């Protein structure tokens, strides 16, 4: 395949992925928006007004970046895991496997599809947050940079989950038992300064903490973690996950007999 053909193959996968989540928008776009509105109403307005300030910010301003990041993470991940596993289950992944499309194009196609949904829902969550809180954006490059890298990383993680998954149960185990606890313990709702030295240090092994803090820094200018360190961690995780996902595709693990 020449580069022009590779571009066509890549854009076909991306277009198909975007078309898929738009076609089933009541399942893919509406629930995250309802969830985010509920979070803003309950944690931002009802409870937040009694909490007062967190890290010298009104609680709703503190929590909003984390909630936006949460929607980006869960939607990037769930789009790729459900789409790729669905293709495995229906065996239409074979359409790609018999074609000359290189594995790295397949990988990028699915990941960009996942990022499209993650970033799309993230953008809608951001617009909603403007209704509940006032923001003056601290740094656009940091905000955009970290949200792109986070979406990339969780799209890659979703693909790896889908490759290993043998049933629909397997694609809900990681989001339920790993992703959700990491998000909740990743500084979305509180500052790690509140945890004390020991639990604060334990929190540092949670990669979501770095993403949420870097994003919060980009939006409102406060963070518990050094932003350079945050970017480095997310970049490192992304490179490792990309390498692993590509290796699994090259080997045909759980895809080719």
């Amino acid at each position, binding site marked *: 395949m020449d580069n022009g053909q590779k571009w066509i193959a890549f854009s076909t*996968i991306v277009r198909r992925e975007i078309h898929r989540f738009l076609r089933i928008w009541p399942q893919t776009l509406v629930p995250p928006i309802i969830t985010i509105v509920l979070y803003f109403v309950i944690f931002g307005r009802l409870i937040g007004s009694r909490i007062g300030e967190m890290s010298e910010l009104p609680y709703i301003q503190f929590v909003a970046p984390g909630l936006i990041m949460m929607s980006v993470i869960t939607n990037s991940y769930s789009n790729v895991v459900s789409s790729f596993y669905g*293709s495995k289950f*229906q065996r239409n992944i*074979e359409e790609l496997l018999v074609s000359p499309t290189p594995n790295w194009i397949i990988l990028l196609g699915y990941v960009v599809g996942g990022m499209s949904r993650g970033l799309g829902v993230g953008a809608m969550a951001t617009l909603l947050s403007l209704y509940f809180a006032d923001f003056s954006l601290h740094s656009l490059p940091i905000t955009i940079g970290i949200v792109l890298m986070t979406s990339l990383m969780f799209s890659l993680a979703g693909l790896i989950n889908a490759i290993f998954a043998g049933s629909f149960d397997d694609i809900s185990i990681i989001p339920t038992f790993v992703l959700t606890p990491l998000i909740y313990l990743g500084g979305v709702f509180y500052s790690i300064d509140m945890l004390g030295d020991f639990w604060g240090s334990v929190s540092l092994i949670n990669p979501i903490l770095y993403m949420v803090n870097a994003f919060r820094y980009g939006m409102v200018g406060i963070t518990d973690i050094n932003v350079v360190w945050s970017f480095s961690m997310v970049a490192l995780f992304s490179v490792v996950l990309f390498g692993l996902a590509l290796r699994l595709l090259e080997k045909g693990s759980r895809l080719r*007999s």
Partner: protein
Amino acid sequence: MKQTIEPALAISQLSKTYEDGFQALKGIDLNVAPGDFFALLGPNGAGKSTTIGIICSLVRKTAGSVRVFGHDIDKDFSTAKQFVGVVPQEFNFNQFEKPIDILINQAGYYGIPAGVAYERAEKYLKQLALWDKRDTASRTLSGGMKRRLMIARALIHKPKLLVLDEPTAGVDIELRRSMWEFLKEINRQGTTIILTTHYLEEAESLCRNIAIIDHGQIVKNTSIRELLKQLNKETFLLDTREELAGCPVVEGYPLTLIDSNSMEVAIEKSQSVNGLFTALTEQGIHILSMRNKTNRLEELFFDLVEKNLQEKKNG
């Protein structure tokens, strides 16, 4: 200078052992000439689908090599895959997508621009009588339509080698025959076709050459004509005008009464059918029609597979 024509498919010492230890292929060799219409026959579990899976890279081979028009599927996979179109046994398209989208997406995976893809999709969907269904969810198509959709999908990148794994399974006779005509036309236009089927009549009607695979080994690889020459005996069914009170006796022709108006007879290749007819007419029995009891290829197929089984039992 003499120019060498590369085989459409050249398989050498191909082996496959699955993770559970099952040896599906035991070092098979197979060559298919360009432009051929080739049948790959064998009982269930013989290794046909594994062979096809390896050709289209859905199954990883354990050893051996596969070349498609001279291009190794490992070393030159991109070119090799451009040459192959595959119609699998099971439906393997997204049941929620529309036929037109399935075809255009498939073309995209081969690097074909959307405009060209649409023109080809229209051509094949029309040829396969699916154009009216192009915008319906493919899950709502009938079984025969789904099979035709998979054929259209396999042809969208204009492969030089088309591999069909039981393409007419579960398809009614009328549709099967229209699919045969379509495949014959594709073959006439230069596409090499490899077909696996359980309908031996299909193989006899469509294919010029044949390989019979059993227990992971090729037990026969020849032309259909040569294979049929090996048939020493054929069993015929005879319908009579007169009602028969008992089974007539004709020396040299072992007749069996089926019902009061039909008989069965096995005739050696060296025997003349005229002799039987003459003898029956002398007994006042007139034959209205005569037909093969089973497909001729079927008889040979069972003979070969049975022989292979006996050889295995005898060590």
